[in-house]
């Protein structure tokens, strides 16, 4: 086992223990809030579990079928605007919480994707196509157009800055 992986494993274990301790304290101090928090967590878990299975399956498909050379060509630092476009579109059309996508992004990154495109993918997730009608009703046309346009434009700056880091 790699040193870094082992370190992550222990960090994750301690993190989980800390959160469980907080829940135990909450159980004795305020059982109602404990129940509400646990129920809220359970609802989130039920929501993401199918997505996790999908992401694991997608990861396996990428590992099995996709040629690392091809990924490196389209999403490496040298890919330029094409790489930005692929990652921005990927971010916009992706669904679910961002943390579900981390393992898949890391997997593609290990195959040659530049980290700046990972950042673009995670950033452009703020553009939510299925929620556009709701945004228009709540905040208006002007707000919706400017809000989403600004996110797409600023993702270019995120790409360029992350590329230099």
């Amino acid at each position: 086992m790699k040193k870094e992986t082992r370190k992550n494993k222990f960090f994750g274990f301690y993190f989980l223990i800390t959160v469980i301790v907080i829940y135990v304290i909450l159980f004795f101090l305020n059982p109602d809030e404990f129940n509400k928090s646990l129920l809220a967590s359970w609802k989130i878990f039920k929501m993401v579990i199918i997505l996790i299975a999908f992401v694991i399956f997608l990861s396996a498909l990428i590992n099995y079928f996709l040629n690392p050379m091809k990924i490196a060509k389209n999403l490496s630092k040298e890919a330029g605007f094409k790489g930005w476009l692929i990652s921005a579109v990927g971010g916009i059309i992706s669904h679910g919480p961002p943390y579900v996508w981390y393992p898949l992004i890391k997997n593609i990154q290990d195959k040659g994707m530049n980290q700046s495109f990972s950042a673009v993918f995670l950033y452009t997730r703020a553009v939510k196509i299925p929620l556009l009608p709701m945004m228009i009703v709540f905040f208006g046309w002007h707000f919706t157009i400017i809000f989403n346009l600004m996110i797409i434009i600023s993702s270019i700056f995120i790409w360029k800055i992350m590329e230099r880091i």
Partner: protein
Amino acid sequence: MKKETKRKNFLSTLFRAAKEFALNSPIFIGVILCIGLFNTFISTQTLQKIFTGNVFSDTILGSITGSIIAGNPINSYIIGKQLLSDGISLYAIIAFLICWVTVGIVQLPYEISVMGKKFAFTRNLLSFLFAILIAIIGSTILGVIS
């Protein structure tokens, strides 16, 4: 025979992908439990009390609260609409909506463990700063248009 080998290879790839995910599952479960806590303790009423009416501090507060709270973006739109109706500035609302999706304080431990410390910190910091920048530019443009 060849088909059987291919199937076995794919299954072992699938198993490897699941194992990689399982390795990070303690943090993942911890993050979900944290989000449950935040959803219970930070209500729309609490958020309304946080904002003061000052454009500058409200923009920063919008970014901070959006970064801390995690959940379905639909909720951020509902809270944002409520805050707007209560007279909170557009600067704060835009910063709040962007940070809700792009910055994740609660899920930061998980992002660090999967993506690395440098990437996670830089990405979140950049997203936070750009949310403020977009809030300022976006609100100014919207002010001019209307």
